[in-house]
């Protein structure tokens, strides 16, 4: 049983977050500034000003020092000990045989073996994240607390790291709480998601259901969108803005009276339709070609990464079913057409 009921007041920001869950992997989802870091640091025991009971992995954390809580923390920036080698980082707290075994398993599963003798200064962001996860596991934690654990891990490796973390949670009984603003991480790892907005949990439940229902209201929809682009307004249509991304893609989006010109847009990966060829007579305002770069399975769905044909450096992400992958013959290099309704382009 896991539960927290945290309260704190800061100038211009009030934290009042309550959550409880019993599943092996939960996610705290929210935009920057929503209060995710405050909650994680309070759970670790680093924020004495945050009041309220905390119970994780069945153990009350109230009054315990950070070193007594045994929470395997993986901060977003990894925070590897820069004066120690990768090996010494991982085995920093692996005092027992079980800890060393956990570290060795993590080293193998996270493909860290070739990095062991290296200085942490030589590692890429993704390598740092993997080492930080292994280091946390070596401490035999009651629970893993991971801040955007997959953010800098490249996609091919991610498809191997996700099953490892899922296996840890379910088979090795290492419960996990992930903190993220990336819905892909939530959908990949978590069984329950808590949506955090301005210091409060506004929604909780099954990630698929939460994100599906979120499409009905703008801010959360935009918050969870995988496609985000800086834009410049190029003109006005009838009730629409015509904007252009920095990569040169023009998009039509609904213009809401009284709202300022958009500077950034967000499009959820579920709101983009893929077709094998240019359609005729469709209502969607945004139709353009792109080339498939990679495919990544996420549960029963597949996340397709595409490079727009005209500007290769702008990546679009589209979620499709496995059936669609087959019927469209999606594979790297395949050229397809993207359709997006103006309503699905959200101003940030």
């Amino acid at each position, binding site marked *: 049983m896991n539960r927290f009921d945290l309260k704190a007041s800061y100038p211009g920001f009030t934290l009042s977050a309550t959550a409880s869950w019993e599943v092996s992997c939960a996610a705290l989802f929210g935009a920057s500034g929503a209060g995710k870091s405050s909650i994680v640091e309070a759970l*670790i*025991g*680093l924020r004495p000003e945050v009041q309220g009971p905390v119970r994780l992995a069945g153990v009350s954390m109230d009054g315990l*020092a*950070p*070193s*007594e*809580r*045994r*929470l*395997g*923390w993986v*901060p977003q*920036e990894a*925070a*590897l*000990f*820069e*004066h*120690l*080698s990768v090996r*010494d980082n991982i085995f*920093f*707290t692996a005092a027992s045989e079980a800890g060393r075994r956990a570290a060795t398993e993590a080293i193998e599963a996270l493909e860290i073996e070739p990095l062991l003798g290296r*200085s*942490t*200064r030589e590692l890429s962001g993704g390598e740092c994240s993997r080492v930080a996860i292994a*280091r*946390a596991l070596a*401490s035999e934690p009651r629970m893993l607390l991971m801040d955007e654990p997959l953010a800098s891990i490249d996609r091919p490796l991610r498809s191997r790291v996700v099953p490892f973390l899922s296996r840890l949670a379910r088979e090795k009984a290492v419960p996990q709480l992930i903190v993220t603003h990336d819905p892909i991480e939530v959908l990949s790892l978590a069984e329950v998601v808590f949506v955090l907005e301005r210091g409060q949990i506004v929604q909780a439940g099954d990630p698929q259901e939460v994100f599906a229902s979120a499409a009905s209201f703008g801010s959360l929809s935009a918050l969870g969108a995988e496609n985000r682009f800086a834009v410049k307004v190029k003109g006005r249509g009838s009730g629409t803005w015509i904007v252009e991304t920095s990569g040169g893609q023009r998009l039509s989006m609904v213009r809401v009276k009284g709202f300022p010109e958009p500077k950034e847009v967000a499009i959820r990966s579920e709101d983009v339709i893929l077709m094998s060829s240019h359609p005729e007579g469709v209502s969607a305002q945004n139709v353009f070609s792109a080339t498939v770069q990679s495919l990544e399975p996420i549960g029963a769905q597949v996340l397709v990464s595409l490079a727009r044909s005209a500007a290769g450096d702008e990546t679009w992400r589209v979620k499709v079913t496995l059936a669609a992958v087959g019927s469209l013959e999606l594979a790297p290099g395949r050229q397809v057409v993207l359709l997006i309704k103006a309503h699905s382009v959200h101003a940030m």
Partner: protein
Amino acid sequence: MKLSEIASIAGLSLQVSLLATVLIAVPAIAVGYVLSRVRFRGRTLLRTFVSLPMVLPPVAVGFLLLTLFSKNTALGEGLAVLLGGSFLLTWKAAVIAASVMAFPLAVLGAERGFDVVPLRQEQVAASLGATPVRVFREITLPLARGGILHGLAFAFVRALGEFGATVLVAGNVPGRTQTLSMAIFTRIEDFRDREAMVLSLLAIVFALAVTGAAEWVLRRPGRSA
């Protein structure tokens, strides 16, 4: 000037500077840590007090030490009993004078060292189960070692060059309390410029060697390489 004379002067200077550096190392690291990490009323006052020997005329510091350690004070009397006689006008007094004058540099170096330690790494170490003592010993101290070593190296060099305070409390007795700085001064006074030059060059060599060694220790690949 005989080689044995140079060796005696250099040996005494190194002995005094090294002992002074060793003597102040732990207190300087502790005060540097407090100044860097602990927020309390009077922090600025403490920093100002610690820095005093750097801004006061060395002779004034020497006079204060002389007054403090004279047999007329309880401290001086206590020390005399403890050491079996007044330690003023001995090489031990030179160590004390050098320690006082070098202390601020060691503290400032340590403070700077602790300032640049990423707090996150200490927090993660604690979250992994490391006790505060282990976090300090294995994370904070190694990460602060750059500033600490620089501070101690400069403190050593400062102790080596100390003159004003030392001459008052330890005197300028050849073979007993005459350090490099005092030997150079004496030779200039006696118009023995060549000897003064030799000793000055020796002081330069020592200073370069110590700061160079500190740089080498900091730059050499550690356990992380």
